[in-house]
Protein backbone atom coordinates (compact mmCIF):
# COMPACT_ATOMS: atom_id res chain seq x y z
CA UNK A 1 0.00 0.00 0.00
CA UNK A 2 1.26 3.42 -0.93
CA UNK A 3 1.63 6.02 1.75
CA UNK A 4 0.53 9.56 1.07
CA UNK A 5 4.14 10.77 1.14
CA UNK A 6 5.15 8.26 -1.54
CA UNK A 7 2.16 9.17 -3.61
CA UNK A 8 3.07 12.86 -3.36
CA UNK A 9 6.64 12.17 -4.33
CA UNK A 10 5.56 10.24 -7.41
CA UNK A 11 3.04 12.88 -8.43
CA UNK A 12 5.70 15.56 -8.00
CA UNK A 13 8.12 13.72 -10.26
CA UNK A 14 5.40 13.15 -12.78
CA UNK A 15 4.35 16.81 -12.74
CA UNK A 16 7.89 18.16 -13.12
CA UNK A 17 9.05 15.74 -15.81
CA UNK A 18 7.65 17.57 -18.90
CA UNK A 19 9.35 20.81 -17.78
CA UNK A 20 12.64 19.04 -17.12
CA UNK A 21 12.54 17.05 -20.35
CA UNK A 22 11.94 20.13 -22.49
CA UNK A 23 14.65 22.11 -20.73
CA UNK A 24 17.14 19.25 -21.15
CA UNK A 25 16.34 19.29 -24.85
CA UNK A 26 16.49 23.03 -25.50
CA UNK A 27 18.84 24.27 -22.77
CA UNK A 28 21.11 21.56 -21.42
CA UNK A 29 21.92 19.79 -24.70
CA UNK A 30 22.75 23.08 -26.54
CA UNK A 31 24.85 24.23 -23.57
CA UNK A 32 26.86 20.99 -23.51
CA UNK A 33 27.19 21.05 -27.29
CA UNK A 34 28.62 24.56 -27.31
CA UNK A 35 30.83 23.79 -24.31
CA UNK A 36 32.38 20.91 -26.24
CA UNK A 37 32.74 23.05 -29.34
CA UNK A 38 34.60 25.72 -27.40
CA UNK A 39 37.54 23.28 -27.16
CA UNK A 40 37.61 22.49 -30.87
CA UNK A 41 38.38 24.42 -33.99
CA UNK A 42 34.84 24.08 -35.29
CA UNK A 43 33.54 26.48 -37.90
CA UNK A 44 30.19 26.78 -39.66
CA UNK A 45 31.94 26.32 -42.99
CA UNK A 46 33.80 23.24 -41.84
CA UNK A 47 31.81 21.76 -38.95
CA UNK A 48 33.87 18.88 -37.65
CA UNK A 49 35.28 17.68 -34.38
CA UNK A 50 38.65 16.73 -35.89
CA UNK A 51 40.67 19.54 -34.48
CA UNK A 52 40.77 19.43 -30.69
CA UNK A 53 42.66 22.49 -29.50
CA UNK A 54 41.96 22.53 -25.75
CA UNK A 55 42.06 26.11 -24.44
CA UNK A 56 43.28 27.77 -27.59
CA UNK A 57 39.92 29.43 -28.30
CA UNK A 58 39.91 30.85 -24.81
CA UNK A 59 43.47 32.13 -24.99
CA UNK A 60 42.78 33.65 -28.41
CA UNK A 61 39.65 35.49 -27.37
CA UNK A 62 41.28 37.02 -24.33
CA UNK A 63 43.95 38.51 -26.59
CA UNK A 64 41.25 39.97 -28.81
CA UNK A 65 41.08 43.70 -28.15
CA UNK A 66 37.60 43.77 -29.67
CA UNK A 67 36.35 41.43 -26.96
CA UNK A 68 37.74 43.71 -24.27
CA UNK A 69 36.19 46.67 -26.05
CA UNK A 70 32.86 44.88 -26.15
CA UNK A 71 33.03 43.93 -22.47
CA UNK A 72 33.90 47.52 -21.59
CA UNK A 73 30.98 48.88 -23.61
CA UNK A 74 28.63 46.31 -22.12
CA UNK A 75 29.68 47.24 -18.58
CA UNK A 76 29.30 50.96 -19.31
CA UNK A 77 25.87 50.26 -20.77
CA UNK A 78 24.65 48.06 -17.90
CA UNK A 79 25.96 50.29 -15.15
CA UNK A 80 24.52 53.41 -16.75
CA UNK A 81 21.06 52.19 -17.71
CA UNK A 82 20.28 50.28 -14.52
CA UNK A 83 21.03 53.07 -12.01
CA UNK A 84 19.28 55.67 -14.18
CA UNK A 85 16.25 53.45 -14.70
CA UNK A 86 16.17 52.74 -10.99
CA UNK A 87 16.38 56.37 -9.85
CA UNK A 88 13.89 57.66 -12.43
CA UNK A 89 11.60 54.66 -12.01
CA UNK A 90 11.60 54.92 -8.22
CA UNK A 91 10.89 58.64 -8.41
CA UNK A 92 7.92 58.07 -10.71
CA UNK A 93 6.70 55.13 -8.60
CA UNK A 94 6.76 57.36 -5.51
CA UNK A 95 4.71 60.01 -7.33
CA UNK A 96 2.24 57.38 -8.53
CA UNK A 97 1.91 56.12 -4.98
CA UNK A 98 0.59 59.53 -3.82
CA UNK A 99 -3.06 60.20 -3.38
CA UNK A 100 -3.74 61.95 -6.69
CA UNK A 101 -6.28 61.87 -9.47
CA UNK A 102 -5.77 60.17 -12.87
CA UNK A 103 -3.37 57.74 -11.21
CA UNK A 104 -4.70 54.85 -13.29
CA UNK A 105 -4.32 56.77 -16.52
CA UNK A 106 -0.73 57.84 -15.80
CA UNK A 107 0.13 54.31 -14.74
CA UNK A 108 -1.36 52.76 -17.86
CA UNK A 109 0.54 55.11 -20.15
CA UNK A 110 3.83 54.81 -18.29
CA UNK A 111 3.82 51.02 -18.47
CA UNK A 112 3.02 50.80 -22.20
CA UNK A 113 6.64 50.41 -23.41
CA UNK A 114 6.99 47.21 -21.41
CA UNK A 115 4.81 45.25 -23.81
CA UNK A 116 6.45 46.70 -26.94
CA UNK A 117 8.93 44.55 -28.79
CA UNK A 118 12.49 45.90 -28.55
CA UNK A 119 12.72 45.65 -32.34
CA UNK A 120 9.76 48.02 -32.73
CA UNK A 121 11.23 50.39 -30.14
CA UNK A 122 14.58 50.37 -31.93
CA UNK A 123 12.98 51.05 -35.31
CA UNK A 124 10.77 53.84 -34.01
CA UNK A 125 13.68 55.67 -32.43
CA UNK A 126 15.89 55.03 -35.41
CA UNK A 127 13.36 56.91 -37.53
CA UNK A 128 13.04 59.72 -35.00
CA UNK A 129 16.77 60.08 -34.48
CA UNK A 130 17.81 60.21 -38.13
CA UNK A 131 20.30 63.07 -38.34
CA UNK A 132 18.62 64.93 -41.24
CA UNK A 133 15.09 63.56 -41.53
CA UNK A 134 14.39 62.74 -37.89
CA UNK A 135 11.78 64.53 -35.86
CA UNK A 136 14.07 64.88 -32.83
CA UNK A 137 16.61 67.04 -34.61
CA UNK A 138 13.75 69.06 -36.08
CA UNK A 139 12.43 69.75 -32.57
CA UNK A 140 15.97 70.66 -31.53
CA UNK A 141 16.16 73.15 -34.40
CA UNK A 142 12.86 74.77 -33.33
CA UNK A 143 14.48 75.50 -29.98
CA UNK A 144 17.68 76.66 -31.67
CA UNK A 145 19.60 73.67 -30.38
CA UNK A 146 22.36 72.20 -32.54
CA UNK A 147 21.56 69.16 -34.64
CA UNK A 148 22.95 65.95 -33.13
CA UNK A 149 24.31 62.98 -35.06
CA UNK A 150 22.54 60.51 -32.74
CA UNK A 151 23.45 57.24 -34.39
CA UNK A 152 26.24 58.24 -36.75
CA UNK A 153 28.82 59.47 -34.29
CA UNK A 154 30.91 56.98 -32.37
CA UNK A 155 31.00 59.33 -29.40
CA UNK A 156 27.23 59.64 -29.12
CA UNK A 157 25.77 56.37 -30.45
CA UNK A 158 26.20 54.46 -27.19
CA UNK A 159 24.56 57.28 -25.26
CA UNK A 160 21.68 57.18 -27.75
CA UNK A 161 21.22 53.44 -27.20
CA UNK A 162 21.31 54.07 -23.45
CA UNK A 163 18.58 56.73 -23.70
CA UNK A 164 16.36 54.53 -25.85
CA UNK A 165 16.84 51.61 -23.48
CA UNK A 166 15.78 53.82 -20.57
CA UNK A 167 12.67 54.88 -22.49
CA UNK A 168 11.86 51.23 -23.07
CA UNK A 169 12.74 49.60 -19.77
CA UNK A 170 11.79 52.19 -17.19
CA UNK A 171 8.25 50.73 -17.11
CA UNK A 172 9.59 47.56 -15.54
CA UNK A 173 11.13 49.51 -12.66
CA UNK A 174 7.98 51.57 -12.17
CA UNK A 175 5.83 48.43 -12.13
CA UNK A 176 7.92 46.45 -9.65
CA UNK A 177 8.75 49.37 -7.35
CA UNK A 178 5.18 50.66 -7.25
CA UNK A 179 3.92 47.17 -6.41
CA UNK A 180 6.52 47.11 -3.64
CA UNK A 181 5.44 50.51 -2.31
CA UNK A 182 1.80 49.44 -2.31
CA UNK A 183 2.55 46.33 -0.30
CA UNK A 184 4.28 48.28 2.50
CA UNK A 185 2.52 48.17 5.88
CA UNK A 186 0.89 51.45 6.98
CA UNK A 187 1.66 51.29 10.70
CA UNK A 188 5.36 52.27 10.71
CA UNK A 189 4.53 55.44 8.77
CA UNK A 190 1.70 56.37 11.10
CA UNK A 191 3.72 55.90 14.26
CA UNK A 192 6.64 57.83 12.73
CA UNK A 193 4.26 60.68 11.98
CA UNK A 194 3.04 60.67 15.57
CA UNK A 195 6.65 60.77 16.72
CA UNK A 196 7.09 63.88 14.57
CA UNK A 197 9.17 62.48 11.72
CA UNK A 198 9.23 64.56 8.54
CA UNK A 199 8.33 63.07 5.17
CA UNK A 200 11.98 63.05 4.18
CA UNK A 201 12.90 61.23 7.37
CA UNK A 202 10.25 58.56 6.94
CA UNK A 203 11.35 58.10 3.35
CA UNK A 204 14.96 57.44 4.22
CA UNK A 205 14.39 55.47 7.41
CA UNK A 206 11.19 53.56 6.70
CA UNK A 207 10.44 53.42 2.94
CA UNK A 208 13.99 52.62 1.86
CA UNK A 209 14.47 50.16 4.69
CA UNK A 210 11.29 48.22 4.02
CA UNK A 211 11.75 48.39 0.26
CA UNK A 212 15.31 47.08 0.33
CA UNK A 213 14.46 43.49 -0.73
CA UNK A 214 12.21 44.64 -3.59
CA UNK A 215 14.79 47.20 -4.72
CA UNK A 216 17.63 44.70 -4.82
CA UNK A 217 15.54 42.14 -6.72
CA UNK A 218 14.42 44.78 -9.26
CA UNK A 219 17.99 45.99 -9.78
CA UNK A 220 19.50 42.51 -10.09
CA UNK A 221 16.85 41.40 -12.59
CA UNK A 222 17.49 44.51 -14.69
CA UNK A 223 21.28 43.98 -14.52
CA UNK A 224 20.87 40.42 -15.79
CA UNK A 225 18.49 41.42 -18.54
CA UNK A 226 20.46 44.45 -19.69
CA UNK A 227 23.50 42.18 -20.20
CA UNK A 228 21.38 40.44 -22.84
CA UNK A 229 20.54 43.58 -24.82
CA UNK A 230 20.71 42.63 -28.46
CA UNK A 231 17.63 43.72 -30.40
CA UNK A 232 18.17 47.47 -29.87
CA UNK A 233 21.74 47.31 -31.15
CA UNK A 234 20.77 45.09 -34.07
CA UNK A 235 18.02 47.42 -35.24
CA UNK A 236 19.60 50.78 -34.47
CA UNK A 237 23.35 50.57 -35.08
CA UNK A 238 24.54 47.02 -35.86
CA UNK A 239 27.27 47.66 -33.33
CA UNK A 240 28.49 50.78 -35.11
CA UNK A 241 29.70 53.31 -35.94
CA UNK A 242 32.91 51.27 -35.91
CA UNK A 243 32.58 49.09 -32.84
CA UNK A 244 31.26 51.80 -30.55
CA UNK A 245 27.98 50.07 -29.62
CA UNK A 246 29.06 46.44 -29.86
CA UNK A 247 27.37 45.05 -26.77
CA UNK A 248 28.51 41.53 -25.89
CA UNK A 249 25.47 39.68 -27.29
CA UNK A 250 25.85 41.42 -30.62
CA UNK A 251 29.60 40.85 -30.55
CA UNK A 252 29.06 37.08 -30.19
CA UNK A 253 26.51 37.14 -33.01
CA UNK A 254 28.90 39.01 -35.27
CA UNK A 255 31.79 36.70 -34.41
CA UNK A 256 29.65 33.75 -35.50
CA UNK A 257 28.14 35.03 -38.70
CA UNK A 258 30.56 37.65 -39.93
CA UNK A 259 33.78 36.50 -38.31
CA UNK A 260 32.76 32.93 -39.21
CA UNK A 261 34.39 31.74 -36.04
CA UNK A 262 31.79 29.69 -34.29
CA UNK A 263 34.06 27.96 -31.80
CA UNK A 264 35.51 31.25 -30.60
CA UNK A 265 31.99 32.60 -30.31
CA UNK A 266 31.05 29.69 -28.05
CA UNK A 267 34.12 30.37 -25.93
CA UNK A 268 33.01 33.99 -25.49
CA UNK A 269 29.51 32.71 -24.73
CA UNK A 270 30.94 30.80 -21.80
CA UNK A 271 32.67 33.89 -20.48
CA UNK A 272 29.29 35.65 -20.58
CA UNK A 273 27.65 32.58 -19.05
CA UNK A 274 29.93 32.75 -16.02
CA UNK A 275 29.34 36.49 -15.55
CA UNK A 276 25.56 36.05 -15.68
CA UNK A 277 25.51 33.03 -13.37
CA UNK A 278 27.46 34.94 -10.71
CA UNK A 279 24.82 37.69 -10.75
CA UNK A 280 22.01 35.11 -10.79
CA UNK A 281 23.43 33.51 -7.64
CA UNK A 282 23.32 36.94 -5.97
CA UNK A 283 19.72 37.32 -7.11
CA UNK A 284 18.66 33.94 -5.77
CA UNK A 285 20.38 34.56 -2.45
CA UNK A 286 18.50 37.83 -2.21
CA UNK A 287 15.19 36.14 -2.99
CA UNK A 288 15.67 32.96 -1.00
CA UNK A 289 16.01 34.99 2.18
CA UNK A 290 12.30 35.60 1.92
CA UNK A 291 10.64 33.24 -0.37
CA UNK A 292 12.36 30.01 -1.10
CA UNK A 293 13.50 28.75 2.25
Amino acid sequence: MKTLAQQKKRTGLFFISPTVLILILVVLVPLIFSFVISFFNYTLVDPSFDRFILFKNYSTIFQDTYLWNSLKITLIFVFTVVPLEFVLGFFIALLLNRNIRFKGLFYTILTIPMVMSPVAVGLIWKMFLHADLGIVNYIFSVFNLPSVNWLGSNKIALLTIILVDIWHQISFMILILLAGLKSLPKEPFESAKIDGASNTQSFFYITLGLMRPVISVAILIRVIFSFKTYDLVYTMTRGGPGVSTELISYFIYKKTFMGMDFSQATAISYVLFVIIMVIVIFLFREMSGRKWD
Partner: protein
Amino acid sequence: MGLKQNKNISNIFTYIILSVASLLILLPILWVIRTSFASELIAYEIPPKLFFVPTLKNYIELFGRLGFGSFLKNSLIIAIGCTVVSVPIAALGGFAFTRYRTGGTTLKFSVLATQMLPGIILVLPIFVIFNTIHFTNTYIGIILAILSFNLPFLVWLLMGFFEGIPKDIEDAAAVDGATPWSTFFRIVLPITVPGIMSASILSFILSWNEFLFALLLTGNNTKTITVSLSAMVTHRGTLIGILSAGTIIAIIPMILLSIFVKKYLIEGLTFGAVKG
Protein backbone atom coordinates in the same frame (compact mmCIF):
# COMPACT_ATOMS: atom_id res chain seq x y z
CA MET B 1 -2.73 76.71 6.27
CA GLY B 2 0.96 76.54 5.37
CA LEU B 3 0.82 72.76 5.42
CA LYS B 4 -2.09 72.68 3.03
CA GLN B 5 -0.34 75.06 0.66
CA ASN B 6 2.72 72.82 0.75
CA LYS B 7 0.57 69.89 -0.17
CA ASN B 8 -0.96 71.78 -3.09
CA ILE B 9 2.44 72.74 -4.40
CA SER B 10 3.71 69.19 -4.22
CA ASN B 11 0.54 67.93 -5.88
CA ILE B 12 1.03 70.36 -8.77
CA PHE B 13 4.63 69.23 -9.03
CA THR B 14 3.46 65.59 -9.11
CA TYR B 15 0.97 66.28 -11.90
CA ILE B 16 3.55 68.15 -13.96
CA ILE B 17 6.20 65.43 -13.70
CA LEU B 18 3.76 62.62 -14.39
CA SER B 19 2.26 64.47 -17.36
CA VAL B 20 5.66 65.17 -18.89
CA ALA B 21 6.73 61.55 -18.40
CA SER B 22 3.46 60.28 -19.90
CA LEU B 23 3.84 62.57 -22.91
CA LEU B 24 7.39 61.34 -23.45
CA ILE B 25 6.01 57.81 -23.71
CA LEU B 26 2.81 58.60 -25.58
CA LEU B 27 3.91 61.15 -28.19
CA PRO B 28 6.42 58.90 -29.98
CA ILE B 29 3.76 56.18 -30.30
CA LEU B 30 1.15 58.66 -31.55
CA TRP B 31 3.68 60.02 -34.03
CA VAL B 32 4.27 56.55 -35.46
CA ILE B 33 0.52 56.08 -35.83
CA ARG B 34 0.36 59.44 -37.63
CA THR B 35 3.24 58.54 -39.94
CA SER B 36 1.67 55.18 -40.79
CA PHE B 37 -1.25 57.07 -42.35
CA ALA B 38 0.94 59.53 -44.27
CA SER B 39 1.99 59.23 -47.88
CA GLU B 40 5.71 58.66 -48.35
CA LEU B 41 6.13 62.30 -49.40
CA ILE B 42 4.46 63.71 -46.30
CA ALA B 43 6.18 61.17 -44.05
CA TYR B 44 9.57 62.62 -44.99
CA GLU B 45 8.60 66.28 -44.95
CA ILE B 46 10.57 68.53 -42.61
CA PRO B 47 9.11 70.62 -41.00
CA PRO B 48 6.52 67.93 -40.54
CA LYS B 49 2.87 68.49 -41.40
CA LEU B 50 0.48 67.90 -38.54
CA PHE B 51 -2.69 67.84 -40.60
CA PHE B 52 -3.09 65.99 -43.87
CA VAL B 53 -5.54 63.68 -45.57
CA PRO B 54 -4.79 60.23 -44.12
CA THR B 55 -4.16 57.40 -46.53
CA LEU B 56 -4.23 53.62 -46.11
CA LYS B 57 -1.60 53.25 -48.82
CA ASN B 58 1.11 52.07 -46.44
CA TYR B 59 -1.06 49.34 -45.00
CA ILE B 60 -2.25 48.26 -48.44
CA GLU B 61 1.32 48.05 -49.67
CA LEU B 62 2.39 46.23 -46.52
CA PHE B 63 -0.22 43.50 -46.81
CA GLY B 64 -0.19 43.43 -50.59
CA ARG B 65 3.24 43.61 -52.13
CA LEU B 66 5.22 42.93 -48.95
CA GLY B 67 3.13 39.95 -47.84
CA PHE B 68 2.83 41.10 -44.25
CA GLY B 69 -0.26 38.93 -43.79
CA SER B 70 1.81 35.78 -43.73
CA PHE B 71 4.25 37.24 -41.18
CA LEU B 72 1.28 38.19 -39.03
CA LYS B 73 -0.03 34.64 -39.35
CA ASN B 74 3.40 33.21 -38.42
CA SER B 75 3.70 35.45 -35.37
CA LEU B 76 0.22 34.38 -34.25
CA ILE B 77 0.90 30.67 -34.76
CA ILE B 78 4.19 30.87 -32.87
CA ALA B 79 2.84 33.00 -30.00
CA ILE B 80 -0.28 30.87 -29.57
CA GLY B 81 1.68 27.64 -30.01
CA CYS B 82 4.21 28.64 -27.33
CA THR B 83 1.43 29.59 -24.94
CA VAL B 84 -0.65 26.48 -25.45
CA VAL B 85 2.36 24.24 -24.92
CA SER B 86 4.09 26.08 -22.09
CA VAL B 87 1.28 27.15 -19.76
CA PRO B 88 -0.02 23.64 -18.87
CA ILE B 89 3.50 22.25 -18.55
CA ALA B 90 4.60 25.20 -16.41
CA ALA B 91 1.51 24.84 -14.20
CA LEU B 92 2.35 21.21 -13.44
CA GLY B 93 6.03 22.04 -12.90
CA GLY B 94 5.38 25.07 -10.72
CA PHE B 95 2.98 23.09 -8.58
CA ALA B 96 5.47 20.26 -8.12
CA PHE B 97 8.09 22.80 -6.93
CA THR B 98 5.78 24.62 -4.52
CA ARG B 99 3.92 21.70 -2.98
CA TYR B 100 6.01 18.58 -3.36
CA ARG B 101 9.45 20.25 -3.34
CA THR B 102 10.37 17.86 -6.13
CA GLY B 103 14.09 17.75 -6.85
CA GLY B 104 14.90 20.11 -3.99
CA THR B 105 16.43 23.56 -4.19
CA THR B 106 19.07 22.57 -6.75
CA LEU B 107 16.60 21.52 -9.42
CA LYS B 108 14.37 24.50 -8.73
CA PHE B 109 17.23 26.99 -9.08
CA SER B 110 18.58 25.27 -12.18
CA VAL B 111 15.20 25.51 -13.87
CA LEU B 112 14.64 29.11 -12.83
CA ALA B 113 18.17 30.20 -13.76
CA THR B 114 17.69 29.18 -17.39
CA GLN B 115 15.37 32.13 -18.02
CA MET B 116 18.24 34.44 -17.07
CA LEU B 117 20.62 33.05 -19.72
CA PRO B 118 21.34 35.49 -22.52
CA GLY B 119 19.55 34.20 -25.62
CA ILE B 120 22.69 34.41 -27.73
CA ILE B 121 24.36 31.68 -25.62
CA LEU B 122 21.56 29.25 -26.41
CA VAL B 123 20.56 30.26 -29.89
CA LEU B 124 23.94 29.60 -31.54
CA PRO B 125 24.19 25.90 -30.59
CA ILE B 126 20.44 25.47 -31.21
CA PHE B 127 20.92 27.01 -34.65
CA VAL B 128 23.73 24.58 -35.50
CA ILE B 129 21.83 21.56 -34.15
CA PHE B 130 18.59 22.52 -35.93
CA ASN B 131 20.49 23.15 -39.13
CA THR B 132 22.03 19.70 -39.00
CA ILE B 133 18.70 17.95 -38.46
CA HIS B 134 16.83 20.29 -40.87
CA PHE B 135 14.67 21.69 -38.17
CA THR B 136 15.09 25.41 -38.95
CA ASN B 137 12.21 27.17 -40.67
CA THR B 138 9.64 25.02 -38.86
CA TYR B 139 7.01 26.19 -36.39
CA ILE B 140 7.82 23.38 -33.95
CA GLY B 141 11.51 24.30 -34.04
CA ILE B 142 11.05 27.97 -33.15
CA ILE B 143 8.36 27.16 -30.57
CA LEU B 144 10.66 24.64 -28.86
CA ALA B 145 13.52 27.15 -28.88
CA ILE B 146 11.38 29.90 -27.32
CA LEU B 147 10.33 27.46 -24.59
CA SER B 148 13.93 27.62 -23.34
CA PHE B 149 13.21 30.93 -21.62
CA ASN B 150 9.41 31.06 -21.73
CA LEU B 151 8.86 27.85 -19.78
CA PRO B 152 11.13 28.62 -16.80
CA PHE B 153 9.68 32.14 -16.64
CA LEU B 154 6.14 30.76 -16.43
CA VAL B 155 7.14 28.16 -13.84
CA TRP B 156 8.51 30.99 -11.71
CA LEU B 157 5.43 33.12 -12.22
CA LEU B 158 2.98 30.34 -11.41
CA MET B 159 4.92 29.29 -8.32
CA GLY B 160 4.01 32.68 -6.89
CA PHE B 161 0.33 31.99 -7.44
CA PHE B 162 0.45 28.45 -6.04
CA GLU B 163 2.19 29.73 -2.92
CA GLY B 164 -0.75 32.03 -2.35
CA ILE B 165 -3.15 29.10 -1.98
CA PRO B 166 -3.65 28.10 1.63
CA LYS B 167 -2.34 24.60 2.24
CA ASP B 168 -5.34 23.79 4.42
CA ILE B 169 -7.58 23.47 1.38
CA GLU B 170 -5.41 20.74 -0.10
CA ASP B 171 -4.91 19.03 3.23
CA ALA B 172 -8.65 18.91 3.76
CA ALA B 173 -9.05 17.37 0.31
CA ALA B 174 -6.38 14.79 1.11
CA VAL B 175 -8.13 13.85 4.34
CA ASP B 176 -11.31 13.37 2.33
CA GLY B 177 -9.41 10.85 0.25
CA ALA B 178 -8.64 12.93 -2.85
CA THR B 179 -5.53 11.87 -4.77
CA PRO B 180 -2.85 14.50 -5.52
CA TRP B 181 -4.04 14.42 -9.13
CA SER B 182 -7.63 15.22 -8.37
CA THR B 183 -6.56 17.79 -5.76
CA PHE B 184 -4.55 19.60 -8.42
CA PHE B 185 -7.18 19.52 -11.16
CA ARG B 186 -10.34 19.89 -9.09
CA ILE B 187 -9.23 22.22 -6.33
CA VAL B 188 -5.94 24.00 -7.11
CA LEU B 189 -6.43 24.86 -10.78
CA PRO B 190 -9.86 26.48 -10.39
CA ILE B 191 -8.56 28.88 -7.71
CA THR B 192 -5.48 29.67 -9.80
CA VAL B 193 -7.41 30.92 -12.83
CA PRO B 194 -6.01 34.48 -12.45
CA GLY B 195 -2.49 33.03 -12.37
CA ILE B 196 -3.13 30.93 -15.47
CA MET B 197 -4.54 34.01 -17.21
CA SER B 198 -1.47 36.11 -16.32
CA ALA B 199 0.84 33.34 -17.44
CA SER B 200 -0.96 32.94 -20.78
CA ILE B 201 -0.99 36.66 -21.56
CA LEU B 202 2.65 37.16 -20.64
CA SER B 203 3.67 34.09 -22.59
CA PHE B 204 1.79 35.37 -25.63
CA ILE B 205 3.39 38.82 -25.43
CA LEU B 206 6.89 37.43 -24.83
CA SER B 207 6.73 35.07 -27.81
CA TRP B 208 5.13 37.67 -30.05
CA ASN B 209 7.92 40.15 -29.29
CA GLU B 210 10.76 37.64 -29.50
CA PHE B 211 13.41 38.51 -32.06
CA LEU B 212 16.82 36.83 -31.71
CA PHE B 213 15.60 33.22 -31.86
CA ALA B 214 13.19 34.04 -34.68
CA LEU B 215 15.96 35.83 -36.60
CA LEU B 216 18.14 32.71 -36.70
CA LEU B 217 15.61 29.89 -36.62
CA THR B 218 12.77 31.01 -38.87
CA GLY B 219 12.89 31.14 -42.65
CA ASN B 220 10.70 32.16 -45.55
CA ASN B 221 7.71 30.11 -44.42
CA THR B 222 7.88 30.93 -40.74
CA LYS B 223 9.29 34.47 -40.59
CA THR B 224 7.71 36.59 -37.84
CA ILE B 225 6.69 40.25 -37.77
CA THR B 226 9.73 41.31 -35.75
CA VAL B 227 12.14 39.64 -38.16
CA SER B 228 10.47 41.06 -41.26
CA LEU B 229 10.41 44.56 -39.75
CA SER B 230 14.12 44.44 -38.99
CA ALA B 231 14.81 43.36 -42.57
CA MET B 232 12.76 46.20 -44.05
CA VAL B 233 15.31 48.77 -43.00
CA THR B 234 18.26 47.21 -44.72
CA HIS B 235 16.73 46.06 -47.96
CA ARG B 236 14.57 48.98 -48.94
CA GLY B 237 16.28 52.01 -47.51
CA THR B 238 13.94 53.45 -44.95
CA LEU B 239 10.44 53.72 -46.27
CA ILE B 240 9.24 55.23 -43.06
CA GLY B 241 5.55 55.26 -43.92
CA ILE B 242 5.47 51.51 -44.50
CA LEU B 243 7.86 50.83 -41.64
CA SER B 244 5.57 52.82 -39.33
CA ALA B 245 2.56 50.83 -40.47
CA GLY B 246 4.40 47.57 -39.79
CA THR B 247 5.54 48.78 -36.39
CA ILE B 248 1.98 49.72 -35.50
CA ILE B 249 0.81 46.22 -36.34
CA ALA B 250 3.58 44.80 -34.15
CA ILE B 251 2.86 46.95 -31.09
CA ILE B 252 -0.80 48.00 -31.02
CA PRO B 253 -2.31 44.52 -30.45
CA MET B 254 0.03 44.03 -27.48
CA ILE B 255 -0.71 47.47 -26.03
CA LEU B 256 -4.47 46.93 -26.32
CA LEU B 257 -4.18 43.45 -24.88
CA SER B 258 -2.14 44.74 -21.96
CA ILE B 259 -4.60 47.53 -21.17
CA PHE B 260 -7.50 45.14 -21.45
CA VAL B 261 -6.00 42.63 -19.03
CA LYS B 262 -3.92 45.03 -16.97
CA LYS B 263 -4.86 43.47 -13.66
CA TYR B 264 -3.61 40.01 -14.65
CA LEU B 265 -0.50 41.39 -16.24
CA ILE B 266 0.56 43.34 -13.16
CA GLU B 267 -0.20 40.46 -10.80
CA GLY B 268 1.84 38.12 -12.95
CA LEU B 269 4.87 40.35 -13.25
CA THR B 270 5.06 41.50 -9.66
CA PHE B 271 4.27 38.26 -7.84
CA GLY B 272 7.78 36.85 -7.96
CA ALA B 273 9.56 40.04 -7.03
CA VAL B 274 7.28 41.61 -4.45
CA LYS B 275 5.24 39.05 -2.58
CA GLY B 276 7.56 37.38 -0.13
